[in-house]
């Protein structure tokens, strides 16, 4: 195994790993500060923050150091490389670099949105000199009026790391941003008439190490030190980007991508990033209802759940196959398991079907060139399938039924009056059933709907179970490539609605409170294709359900 010495500490690196000094030092737990280097972008070595002493350990044991400091991001390591990042020389270089970067940086941390998660603050605190010797006036450049629908540019805060420029050139391919002027007059700008409105534009806000690029959506909403984040998965499409949900006092403020090499890499698309607004929609269903002839006759969970359970049992007694459950591709694996096993326990001949999975025409690959053609290699993909967990729910249904009854088939049977009771699970915020499809259930005796937004079928409902969105639930989503990842609860459900897993846990008359690990080990025992759900790695980057298969999700 090749060994690298980081501050006299030997670190083993894999023989096929191609690392630079920053990555090798990170393996040793040593931080080498850097602004312009980003693992997903090309190396420019322009910020000079990662300067370190690098040398070579010869086979005879002598160490020969290079005379000058070298940028760690641009220096690959090999067997015997010696990295020194804590010498006086390096520390002085960092102080000088930071003082230089701060020459024209305004001291407006109190009003800057990045304060609290700003690398300039962090590194100044850890490695900075603490004072400036600048006697002249700062060169303050005016803010740009408009550079994109979702992002703002505070030109004066920029330290010219050009991460955003490289992002638009290399990941989105649209190349809207560039550097104008030279030297002290350098600025980030757009080409006239070409604002940054590509579908990945929001990422430039995340990769900006300072507060120069800010999200208009989040601007001045919260101070970042108030936010509490939970690791989760974006439900916007079947890519299943790993995300962080930032919330404060039960109000979600933003989603941020969480780097995950198994899922999507470092980024996420704007559809997902800003697509969570329905969570706080005024139309949310907030109370459970038991309805008779369109009138609510009960609005408490005990009564509604008891009567829903009784209605399902009654339908089962009238003969086999009179119950149908339409699972949603927005459900977690656990919820699908709880519902399917409950329905199958009542009536082994019950129909299990999966609801409408919204799809657009084609997967959207990036980077794209100016004419919109995809450039190989693909670095980011927005999937056509706009549901997070079709694969996971289907594997649960396949365990019970062998094959999945298509939604249209269920609708046809419902129109024929085959079912006495149906259990419909919604979850797609953009609608999962059309007016016409909803009519199929107009004659069904018992229509139980578990959803958080109104849908056309609501008028035929006998039981409405007000459920939760992805930020209010916990469970497992399986993405298009078979990567199972955990979503975690970050806020409480509004008013009297309840998270889905709790509704189904109570409906199936299990004792106590919902416990995800119990359900997951139950699933892993029963369903062979989901046996990896008990893997402890699930809580981190997720696990590939099919170990032998290539991790098809790896893109960036």
């Amino acid at each position: 195994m090749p060994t690298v010495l980081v501050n006299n500490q030997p670190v083993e690196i894999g023989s096929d790993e191609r690392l630079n000094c920053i990555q090798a030092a990170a393996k040793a737990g040593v931080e080498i500060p850097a602004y312009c280097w980003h693992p997903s972008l090309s190396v420019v070595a322009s910020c000079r923050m990662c300067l370190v002493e690098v040398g070579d350990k010869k086979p005879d044991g002598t160490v020969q150091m290079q005379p000058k400091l070298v940028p760690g991001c641009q220096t690959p390591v090999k067997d015997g490389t010696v990295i020194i990042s804590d010498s006086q020389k390096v520390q002085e270089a960092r102080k000088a670099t930071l003082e230089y970067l701060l020459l024209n940086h305004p001291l407006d941390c109190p009003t800057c949105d990045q304060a609290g998660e700003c690398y300039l603050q962090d590194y100044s605190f850890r490695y900075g000199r603490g004072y400036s010797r600048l006697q002249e006036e700062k060169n303050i450049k005016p803010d740009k009026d408009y550079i994109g629908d979702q992002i703002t540019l505070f030109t004066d805060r920029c330290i010219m790391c050009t991460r955003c420029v490289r992002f638009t050139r290399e990941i989105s391919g649209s190349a809207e941003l560039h550097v104008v002027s030279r030297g002290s007059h350098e600025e980030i700008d757009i080409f006239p008439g070409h604002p940054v409105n590509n579908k990945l534009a929001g990422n430039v806000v995340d990769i900006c190490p300072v507060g120069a690029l800010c999200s208009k959506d989040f601007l001045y909403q919260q101070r970042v030190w108030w936010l509490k984040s939970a690791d989760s998965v974006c439900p916007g499409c079947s890519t299943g980007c790993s995300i962080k949900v930032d919330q404060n006092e039960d109000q979600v403020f933003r989603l941020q991508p969480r780097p995950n090499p198994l899922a999507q890499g470092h980024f996420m698309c704007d559809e997902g990033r800003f697509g969570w607004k329905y969570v706080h929609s005024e139309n949310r269903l907030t109370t459970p209802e038991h309805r008779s002839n369109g009138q609510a006759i009960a609005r408490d969970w005990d009564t509604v759940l008891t009567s829903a359970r009784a209605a399902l049992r009654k339908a089962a007694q009238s003969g086999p196959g009179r119950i149908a459950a339409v699972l949603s591709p927005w459900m977690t694996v656990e919820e699908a398991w709880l519902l399917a096993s409950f329905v199958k326990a009542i009536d082994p001949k019950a129909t299990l079907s999966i609801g409408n999975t919204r799809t657009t025409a084609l997967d959207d690959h990036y980077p794209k060139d100016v004419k919109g053609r995809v450039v190989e290699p693909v670095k980011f993909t927005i999937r056509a399938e706009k549901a997070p967990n079709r694969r996971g729910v289907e594997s649960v249904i396949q365990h019970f039924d062998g094959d999945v009854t298509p939604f249209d088939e269920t609708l046809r049977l419902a129109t024929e009056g085959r079912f006495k009771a149906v259990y419909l699970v919604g979850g797609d915020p953009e609608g999962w059933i059309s007016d016409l499809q909803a009519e199929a259930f107009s004659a069904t005796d018992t229509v139980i709907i578990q959803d958080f937004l109104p849908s056309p079928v609501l008028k035929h409902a006998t039981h409405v179970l007000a459920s939760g969105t992805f930020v209010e639930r916990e469970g497992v989503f399986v993405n298009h490539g078979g990567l199972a990842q955990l979503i975690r609860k970050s806020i409480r459900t509004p008013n009297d609605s309840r998270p889905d897993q709790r509704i189904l846990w109570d409906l199936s008359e299990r004792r106590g409170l919902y416990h995800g690990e119990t359900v997951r080990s139950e699933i892993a025992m029963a369903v062979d294709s989901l046996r990896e759900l008990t893997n402890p790695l699930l809580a981190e980057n997720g696990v590939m359900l099919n170990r032998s298969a290539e991790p098809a999700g790896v893109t960036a």
Partner: protein
Amino acid sequence: MAKREKSVMYVEEPEIGFWEATFVPAIVEGLRTTMKHLVSRETVTEQYPEQKPDLPLHYRGVHRLNRDEKDRVKCVACMLCATACPAHCITIEAAPAPKDWPDRDKFPQTFELDELRCIYCGMCEEACPVDAIELTHIYDLTGQTRDELLYTKDKLLNVFDKTRDNPRDPVRTGRGVLGPASEFQALPTLGPATQVATSDRSAKIGTAGVIESGTGNVTDGGARS
């Protein structure tokens, strides 16, 4: 166990002497104070509503939001007061500053301070980087509903208008937009905020704003007043 032994200090009860055990000296001492007050003509009672108390200068009463020289609210909505507040009584909603305020990015759209929840600790005043929020000498705060004492931005600015000329509530500082460091026109020569080793190259350069090697003194360029 050893750790506990270290942290525990054993104190012996002092020995009580004969006279102390009789309690006579203590009783005599107490009676002497009583007699002193009995014969003295000095008044110690304050006739409160008629006679206002003479409060110390650092008294912390109702808050005010200061105005700058253009009569705009001085607050920049950084929410550091709300962060520092131990009683969580400050709620601020920030917004981008109006277009005709070129020197600001951000201003408080709403500023609510619950005077009933406040514990008057003065942490907000201390946290404020622009000296926008200050505690005045107004102590007799009354209201008939809770809403009356939920002070909005307008009410807090009114308190400023009422108290700005009161010599007891001077506008204590004349700092700029974002504290002294942000004033580029009169940038003071800066001393080190952190300790710099005398071997540091910067410490050896004889320019202004650098500590003299070894002494730790700031060579003052005279700009800091």
